């Protein structure tokens, strides 16, 4: 009755959220007196999972699974859960895992709790704390079914290293032709850029920047910090920046370690989308801007002077650290 996790592997390594998931699952397994099994799909070296608490790895290798497919991947997770008699199945909150989780839940006749932000409040009854109302509240949910599916919110638990090692074995799954009725035709990924979903630092610009021609300094600040660039809703509505950069309640959610808002006043919908970030910095000329109420650090002043100076100081800092 182990705890089963699905750990995503991309571009030659496990995603950071997969290692966070392993760290979290280890603690859950300890409180249940059991072990953690990870299932991987077309992953390479899986030894890293052992360092984050995984006891056993089921390696699934199948060329048909090269591209994400919700039904087929759900079959994999379901068969792994059945093999391990797992009562608790935990996924991360990437776009793919959130696509997968409800499909897995119905397949296992399990109750499903998403946006889980902490270790279970109690394991009997099984209660978890979840983000709700766009981070304006939390909801403690009791999962009453025998099998439970959880999705762990990104950046909510962190990484915990252990001294363990994982035993890996190959796992053969049976897939159905009907699993592949949704067909991927093409993918378009911006290369060489940090995506908002994966970023630990996000630098975001608002209407205070006056026009798209002024984004050079935002991109440079992001590049110095290894950050993703983002923007507020008015900026994407004005087409100054692509829609894919819009963060906020109706745009992309951000749960970064550091979120730097430049020239963003902080409308309630914007804050709702980025509030899960750990540390927030605001740079704005208007000391009354609502963003100052939610930020950890604030600078009242002109971004056109502050940002270039901050870039040069950060470069010097990075060179010495």
């Amino acid at each position: 009755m182990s705890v089963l996790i699905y750990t995503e592997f991309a571009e030659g390594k496990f995603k950071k959220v997969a290692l966070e998931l392993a760290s979290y699952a280890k603690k859950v397994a300890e409180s249940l007196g059991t072990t953690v099994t990870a299932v991987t799909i077309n992953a390479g070296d899986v030894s890293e999972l052992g360092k984050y608490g995984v006891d056993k790895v089921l390696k699934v290798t199948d060329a048909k699974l090269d591209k994400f497919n919700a039904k087929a991947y759900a079959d994999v997770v379901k068969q792994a859960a059945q093999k391990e008699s797992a009562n608790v199945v935990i996924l991360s909150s990437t776009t793919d895992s959130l696509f997968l989780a409800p499909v897995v839940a119905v397949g296992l006749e399990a109750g499903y709790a998403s946006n889980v932000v902490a270790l279970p409040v109690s394991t009997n009854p099984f209660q978890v704390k979840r983000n709700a109302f766009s981070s304006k509240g939390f909801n403690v949910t009791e999962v009453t079914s025998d099998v439970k599916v959880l999705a762990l919110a990104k950046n909510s638990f962190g990484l915990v290293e252990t001294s363990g090692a994982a035993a890996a074995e190959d796992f053969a799954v049976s897939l159905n032709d009907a699993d592949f009725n949704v067909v991927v035709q093409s993918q378009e990924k911006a290369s060489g850029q940090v995506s908002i979903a994966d970023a630990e630092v996000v630098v975001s610009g608002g209407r205070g920047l006056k026009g798209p021609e002024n984004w050079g300094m935002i991109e440079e600040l992001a590049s110095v910090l290894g950050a993703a660039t983002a923007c507020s809703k008015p900026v994407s509505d004005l087409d100054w920046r692509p829609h894919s950069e819009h963060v906020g309640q109706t745009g992309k959610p951000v749960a970064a370690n550091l979120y730097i808002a430049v020239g963003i006043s902080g409308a309630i919908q914007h804050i709702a989308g980025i509030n899960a970030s750990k540390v927030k910095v605001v740079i704005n000329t208007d000391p009354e801007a609502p963003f100052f109420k939610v930020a950890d650090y604030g600078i009242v002043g002109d971004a056109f002077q502050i940002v270039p100076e901050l870039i040069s100081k950060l470069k010097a800092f990075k060179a010495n650290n």
Partner: protein
Amino acid sequence: MKILVCISHVPDTTAKINFTNGDTEFDTNGVQFVINPNDEFGLTRAIWFKEKQGAHVTVVNVGGADTEATIRKALAIGADEAIRVNANPTDGFFVAKQLAEVVKAGSYDLVICGKESLDYNGGMVPGMLATMLGFNFVNSCVGIEVDGSTATLIREIDGGKETLTANLPLVIGGQKGIVEEKDLRIPNMRGIMTARTKALNVMEPIAADVKTKAVKFEKPAPKSAVKLISPDNLDELINLLHNEAKVI
């Protein structure tokens, strides 16, 4: 093509979030309710299919009688008819189970949901519904075209986009991008008047297992005040981010 658009009745994005009854319920006092934004993008795309491809559009909501104003708004925007499943939506599984009954009874070709609601942010219903029905399913959908019985879809992936094809019947979880903000429609007087005469059928719920239940709610801990740093002392900001916050 018969389209079913599933809508949630959610607090307006600017609503203050409070809890009542010993923190076991959301406090609706003074809260304006709207069509869940992710659902409204999908509804608007459905109306486009109605106008361009002659689709028939039904909207459905699982909720009490208090959601009817929200349902009428969807009719005013252009849906042809509406269904309300008369039940308190207790969790995603319960709602998906009710919707599956509605889909089976109406033999819909395309079911459009929002990828998540802005109240509980569960992101559960579209995937559960598709799986219960055995329909094809695409989540985080930012584009859909239908040609005969085949749909071409664009979905958001982490760091980019993916183009997919799938046959109908199909369930999608839609979001902004399926139409843009500027494409959203504000109901006009004629729409509002016609909506009053359109059918709004009330169905009673079917029994469903309870798999999860909300035990209580909490508000985030109050935030400590912002630390202001002088624009002339950016070294201090770097110092704080490095030594205090430990994020750089």
